[in-house]
Structure formats: structure tokens, C-alpha cells
């Protein structure tokens, strides 16, 4: 999946990356949380490490809030030995379900886009 993001990232930079990110950030956040629970800054770091370098801090926090409000995430607080307590987010059943559906949708969309670009002779 990260390969797709990367392709997207490099091939459409002249377009508005933030616009594209808006559409896929929900999915990206859900995907990042599938492997492991995380707190805000941690999730942001994972997204950046995965190649979404231009994701905005506020966008991630806002998205987390929205996904939580939509019932796709659960939260719990973990006391940290250094510094303040951290609020961890984890996928619940609804979140995992949503991830599967959105993931499929994205893949088909991306495949369509790739094919479209390939047809016009553009390398990924």
C-alpha cells in the first residue's frame, strides 16, 4: 500500500498534494493503526515514515478526532514515565471493517488511475 502512496506522492506533486491527502488520510490513519495502537504524535511519525511527508500535524489530530467521533476508534490513556499521559488510539471492530472496505475501494481506484495513466503512456 505504501508503494501506491509513494507513486502518488511523486507523480502528482505538481498537483495539490494536500488535496489528495485529504481524500485518503482517513484510510491512511486507519491503516497505520491496524498494525499497532498509537498516540497522536506517534501516528503522525508513522505516516511520515511511510512516505506521507506532507501530512499536516493538525490534519492528523483532526482526523483522529473525527474517526473517534464516528465510532471507528477507541481511546485509552497510558501514563508515560517521562512527561504527560498519552492518549492512545486503537482500531475497534467497526474501524477494522471500515479499513477493509475503504482499502478495497482505494485499491480499485488506484488501479484504475494507474491504468488510465499507463494507457496515456505515462510511467508510474
Amino acid at each position, binding site marked *: 500500500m505504501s508503494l501506491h502512496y509513494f507513486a502518488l506522492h511523486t507523480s502528482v506533486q505538481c498537483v495539490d498534494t494536500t488535496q489528495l491527502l*485529504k481524500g485518503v*488520510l482517513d484510510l491512511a490513519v486507519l491503516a497505520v493503526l491496524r498494525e499497532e495502537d498509537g*498516540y*497522536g*504524535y506517534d501516528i503522525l511519525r508513522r505516516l511520515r515514515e511511510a512516505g506521507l511527508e506532507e501530512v*499536516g*500535524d*493538525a*490534519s*492528523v*489530530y*483532526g*482526523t483522529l*478526532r*473525527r474517526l473517534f*467521533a464516528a465510532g471507528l476508534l477507541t481511546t485509552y490513556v497510558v501514563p508515560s514515565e517521562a*512527561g*504527560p499521559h*498519552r*492518549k492512545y488510539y486503537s482500531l475497534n471492530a467497526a474501524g477494522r471493517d471500515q479499513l477493509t472496505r475503504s482499502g478495497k475501494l482505494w485499491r480499485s481506484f488506484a488501479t484504475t488511475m494507474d491504468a488510465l495513466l499507463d494507457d496515456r503512456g505515462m510511467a508510474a
Partner: protein
Amino acid sequence: MTVTEQEITDYVARVRAALADLPPAYRDELTEDLPEHLAEVAAEADGTLVERLGEPEAYAAELRSAAGAAATTGGRRADRRFRATADRFRARLHRWDVQLGPPLGYASAGEFLRLLRPAWWMLRGYLAAMLVTVLTTGGTFGLLPSLNGSTLAGLVLLAGSVLASIWLGHHTPGLSRPKRRLLRVGTAVLVVFGLAGVVDMDGRARSGDFGYEQISIDGRYDHVRDVFVYDSAGRLVENARLFDQNGDPIRLGYPDCLDERDLNGSGNPLLRPYPYCPQQAPYAPRPPAATPPAPNVPPLPEPTTAASPAATPTATPAATATGTLAPAQPSPTRTG
């Protein structure tokens, strides 16, 4: 780490101000992670928060749109209005902060004030030492602290509290929230105490009474420079000594004349008997009284008196007294 606690607080305040129109509970939810997040961002690299994250208002706009903010959860209206007012006030403070900066030669007034922070730590330590002084001695606010009346101990206390205050200043950001609140209350107490102390000291300085306190309870004898004792016959008694009920010598005045008796150096002139200066006696029959009828004491008694003291100490004074009252007459009874 170049980002300070203050910068984080300011940033959060501006983000919250930009979200002031949202229901408070919802806004709290949106921004609850923000301080911790900013601390993480601050820790990862150099640069100000604005350089790294953009203006707080832009951050707030992004947060709002990403969260799809349109929720209308509850929140009491009065509470909301209060928060909106508080945020507007904070935003105004921020504007003043920025506007006052350039006249001072800094980007913001806060930046200038932050430079003064160590100076404030030292002042805080001093005020704490003065508070201890005033509380323990119940005295007035002077210039130097003292402990149990000892200025030296006071200076040690001063050094200790200044160092402690500086240490505390460096460690304030690491304190937990309740401790920080406690610190804030303590600071407020010190500020009020310091202002009151300065006003009090100013008042005393203006009235000319700079903390001077009379030591003797009865000041009636302060002007006394010498003591003259007269016997019932009005004759000046020389070499008199005064004692109180405890047998302690009473010391009054100070010899301001040269006394030939003391020329051989008996040390402390205050140990001389009264009067210090017999020639200054107010009622002295200065000219030698016309020699009263003195039947058995012939012309000059000096030789006899000079010889007699050891033999008949009690008899001689009477003899001299009757003989002459000449001021220069050396006293025969130097028994003390």
C-alpha cells in the same frame, strides 16, 4: 531545545482562540493533545513552533476542517461566553505582546521579559528571605534579611533562598500541574508581600525614621554627660560610684575633659568615678571656701591627709572636707 514552555502555552492559546466559536467541550476535545504534541515537536528539532507548524490560526483551520467540525454538542451558554471572552482577552494580550516588542527592541514583549527571568528568580529568592525575616522576627521590612537577629545568618539565608529560587526557576517546566499551581500561588504571595514591604519602607524613609529603634527604654538620661554628687551639706563628693540594685555599675555620660588622674593610663575612661570632670561641677564652690573655723587643723592639711589614708580611711575624708574644698586636692580615698 529552543522552544520554551511559554511558546507552547502561547501557541495553544492562539489555536484555542481561533476555535472559540466551537462548543467548548468539542474544542477541548480537539485541542486536548495539543500541548503534548507541541512538546514532542519542540523536542525533535530546532526552530520555533511557528516555523515548524505554521501560524496557530492556520493550524486551527486545518484541525477544524480535518475534524469536520460542525458538531453542536452541548455546553452551557454562560460557560461558553466566558471562554470566548477569555480567549479574546488572550488574543488581545498576544497582540499587545507583539506590538510592544519593537519599541523594546525585541520581536515581542514576551521575548524581552523572558530574558529578565533569571533576574526575577534572584528577586524572588530575596523576597522569600525577607518574608522569612519578617515572619520570624515580627519586625519591619528592612533592606537585609536576618535570622534570630543575626545579619550573618540572614545573609546565609539570603544566599540559600536565591540559589533555591534559581534552581526552581530552571526546574519549573518539569513540575507537575498541581505543584506549578502551588508555585504560582506562592509567587503571588511574594509579589504582594514585596510590594507592601517596599511601600512600607518608602513611608519610613520619607518620615526620616529608617528603622532606627531607641534601645534604652527611658530616654530621660540620654543627655547626661557627667554626674555630680553632693552631700547633705552641699559639698561636691568626688570619686563617687553609682550602682544599681544588682550591684552593677551605672554608667552615664562620657568624660569630655582631660583628667590628670587618668594620665597614667588606667584604660577605659568610663571606669573613672564620678564626676568625670569635677572642674565642671555646676554648683561647686569653686573658689576655695574661706577656711571655716578649723581649730585643730592648721594651715595646710595636705601633708596630713596624704599620710593618713591607709591608717584612718574613714577619718580623713572628714578632715579634708573640713580643711579645704580645693578642686585640685587629690582625693585620699582611692579605695576602689
